[in-house]
């Protein structure tokens, strides 16, 4: 009896609610994009990727760029795996859900772990930044050059601890390359994010660290920056720091952290073209460049075609480097 009265009450409410529906504003699908675009960042707010993604997408709503604002959604966890897995599996391929990528992180993870993403089910849109990894030690450290550190590590295998931002990030790749090139053995200490990894070096908890060039540059008076894992010196920020190649150590630019925006594979080609054109123009905006520069974040704009090639090169190289580490 009581249930019946529940039901009766309820149905009358349902009818009223459906009537009310007609009053709600209802947007019809128009030309893409007709509503804000979400960009998933696989790291937590406050990290370098999150911070840069917010900066470079700030002008999206302008008429010449994407005409609609971009909203950042953070899905952190497991060095990016949680967010990218979600994106590859659950996100809509309609151009309204995009994600920020970090190369080599996501490619390396897709090789080593059983992830739901790989370069085969993702489409790059454009690249906004490149941040090389640098080898750092505390200012009070007894090591004054990369050679000294490598020499000690060779004589004391496993005694040298090196911090970096998580598993199979650019920092980790750089250390793997260093170990492979010199034959020395290091103990990698993965931390949650680059800031933590820097803190371990500043606090003297670890022997050395690989960290972002931009962050190391900011803390340069408390650090010794020993070498840079890139093909050329960074003339703008650190003109005096040698590359590994100059020191005779075969570490190239494979660990450089490229940041950009990607979509899902099945996104309609027209949408991808529109995005690819709009985002590059947006990244090139003078205001964006100014703020990025003030924040000490190196910009490196690459078009969609360039990124496609870069992804494939990294995929080939990392498959070779990591072949012994692959987990079933």
């Amino acid at each position, binding site marked *: 009896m009581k249930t019946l009265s529940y039901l009766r009450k309820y149905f009358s409410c349902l009818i009223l609610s459906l009537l009310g529906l007609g009053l709600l504003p209802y947007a019809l699908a128009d030309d893409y994009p007709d509503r804000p675009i*979400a960009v998933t960042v696989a790291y*937590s*707010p*406050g*990290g370098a990727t*999150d*911070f840069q993604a*917010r*900066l470079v*997408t*700030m002008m999206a709503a302008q008429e010449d760029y994407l005409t609609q604002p971009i909203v*950042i*959604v*953070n*899905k952190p*966890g*497991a*060095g990016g*795996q*949680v967010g990218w*897995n*979600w994106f590859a599996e659950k996100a809509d391929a309609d151009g309204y859900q995009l994600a920020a990528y970090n190369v080599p992180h996501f490619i390396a*993870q897709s090789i*080593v*772990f059983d992830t739901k993403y790989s370069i085969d089910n993702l489409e790059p849109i454009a690249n906004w930044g490149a941040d090389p990894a640098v080898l750092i030690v505390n200012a009070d450290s007894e090591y004054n050059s990369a050679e000294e550190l490598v020499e000690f590590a060779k004589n004391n295998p*496993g*005694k*040298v*601890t090196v911090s970096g931002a998580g*598993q199979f990030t650019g920092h980790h790749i750089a250390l793997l390359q260093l170990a492979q090139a010199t034959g020395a053995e290091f*103990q*990698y*200490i*993965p*931390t*949650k994010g680059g*800031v*933590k990894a*820097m*803190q*371990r070096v*500043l*606090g*003297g*908890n*670890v022997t050395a660290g690989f960290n972002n060039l931009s*962050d190391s540059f*900011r*803390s340069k*008076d*408390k650090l010794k920056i020993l070498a840079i894992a890139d093909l050329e010196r960074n003339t703008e920020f650190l003109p005096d720091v040698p590359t590994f190649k100059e020191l005779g150590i075969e570490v190239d630019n494979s660990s450089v952290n490229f940041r950009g925006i990607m979509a899902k594979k099945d996104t309609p080609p027209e949408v991808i073209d529109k995005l690819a054109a709009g985002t590059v123009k947006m990244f090139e905006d003078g*205001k964006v460049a100014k*703020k990025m520069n*003030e*924040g*000490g*974040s190196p910009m490196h704009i690459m078009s969609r075609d360039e990124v496609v090639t870069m992804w494939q090169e990294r995929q080939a190289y990392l498959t070779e480097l990591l072949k012994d580490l692959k987990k079933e």
Partner: protein
Amino acid sequence: MEFIQYFPEVFTFSNLTILILGTMGGLLLGATPGLSPTMAVALLIPFTFHMQPAPALILLGAVYTATVAGGAVSAILVSIPGAPANIATMLDGFPMARGGKAMQALHYCFISSFIGGMLGVLLLVFFTPVLSNVALKFGPSELFWVAILGVTVIGSLGSGSVLKGLFAGAVGLWLSTIGYDPILGEERFVVTDHLAGGITIIPALIGLFAIPQVLGMLEVTEHQQAKMLALESQSIWQSIKYNFSRIKALTIGSIIGMVVGIIPGAGGQVAGIVAYDQTKKFSKEKDSFGKGNPDGVITAESANNAMVGPSLVPLLTLSIPGSPTAAVLLGGLLINGLFPGPDLFTIHAQVTWTFIDSLIVAQVVMLIFGLTISRYCRFVTRIPQYYMAAAVTVLAVFGTYSVQNSMSDVFVMMTIGTLMYLASKIGFSPAPVVLGLILGPIAESNLIEGKLIAQSGDGFVAYFMSGGINLTLIALCLLSIGYSLVTELIRVKKSRENTI
């Protein structure tokens, strides 16, 4: 006294307008479920894009200050803590509101926030050079012990038995391990796809506190409801007088807040709870905590806001953020060309001091604005329980979804909430579970990191159990456990005597 000369900078018309709007907006954002202070500041960073450095930082500082207090408003009035920091505020604030003392609870909340916040900022102003290197003393082993110290607090947090409290805390710790492990990237306990992202704190927080409250409201009969709605009013002056008479709660809260703020990574999330626990332990009326004791609100809010200033010390000097929100604030500093370090107080002194001064002014604006809106809380408390329950349900779903646009989070929130409702009927409380969820990842990642470092050095025991800070922390842990056990024994003995 350098900071005084930059005050006029804050009081220009446009800067003051930004500060007032930022404070009011921050209170609103902070009161929105699911929108933590961290998210609120992150959302505002693009906003500051078109501004000059000084007003941009004033806006961020005002919002940071106000969202922390805003979370307390929703905790007190609708039992949804805006951020983990506000859990402790809710433990006594919501019972006070249910008992017709919503206005008093809000008054104490804003007054204590103000006092704690001011002390915190003053610590920042005067002791930054002295304190700047403290943050670096906390490596993996120290942070591990800090987390364990937090865990030992768990047992005495609940209102019932210490054993049940500890068990609930352990459940929280265990729940935090669901998902990928922090170092090896291994999947753990992912029984459904919805758990792949793990149990994130804000959804869990909303579920554990709001859902049992919703179901509790629906249980209430009409008769009981009439009794609860009588709202006592109290003048602001009376509140201020009373607030200052609770000097012990205020002092404990402010000191613990400041200490926790300086330790990076421990997160201001636990400042309120630790302060609450200590105040309870030092109180003569332990049983009244959790049932609407004003001391609970006073100590928790003074701790939450006392943490804001000190958490900026390692940020401004070493670019190491003391809390997740400070981490986002770092971005705000960077885009305005302010690189943390010595330059901040020399070359950029003007902008830096204007920013710090704006934190002080924001505290004042928040106090005035908060006390003014407190009287309108009757509009919320007068809402009938069935409307309230329906609104909180929908808000919980919206808030949870908006954290990371995830329906899985909403399912997790609802499931955890319903289970918590059932568990509350057999004497478990949600606070230890949340504390376990917060501390779990801190304890685990520092344990594993420390283990890796220890393996290539002197070994596990030597690494974790040497050094002044480690030993002090271990001693504090033992003290805390010992205290809990003794009080539990006394409690059992008493209840036995009563039954005989």
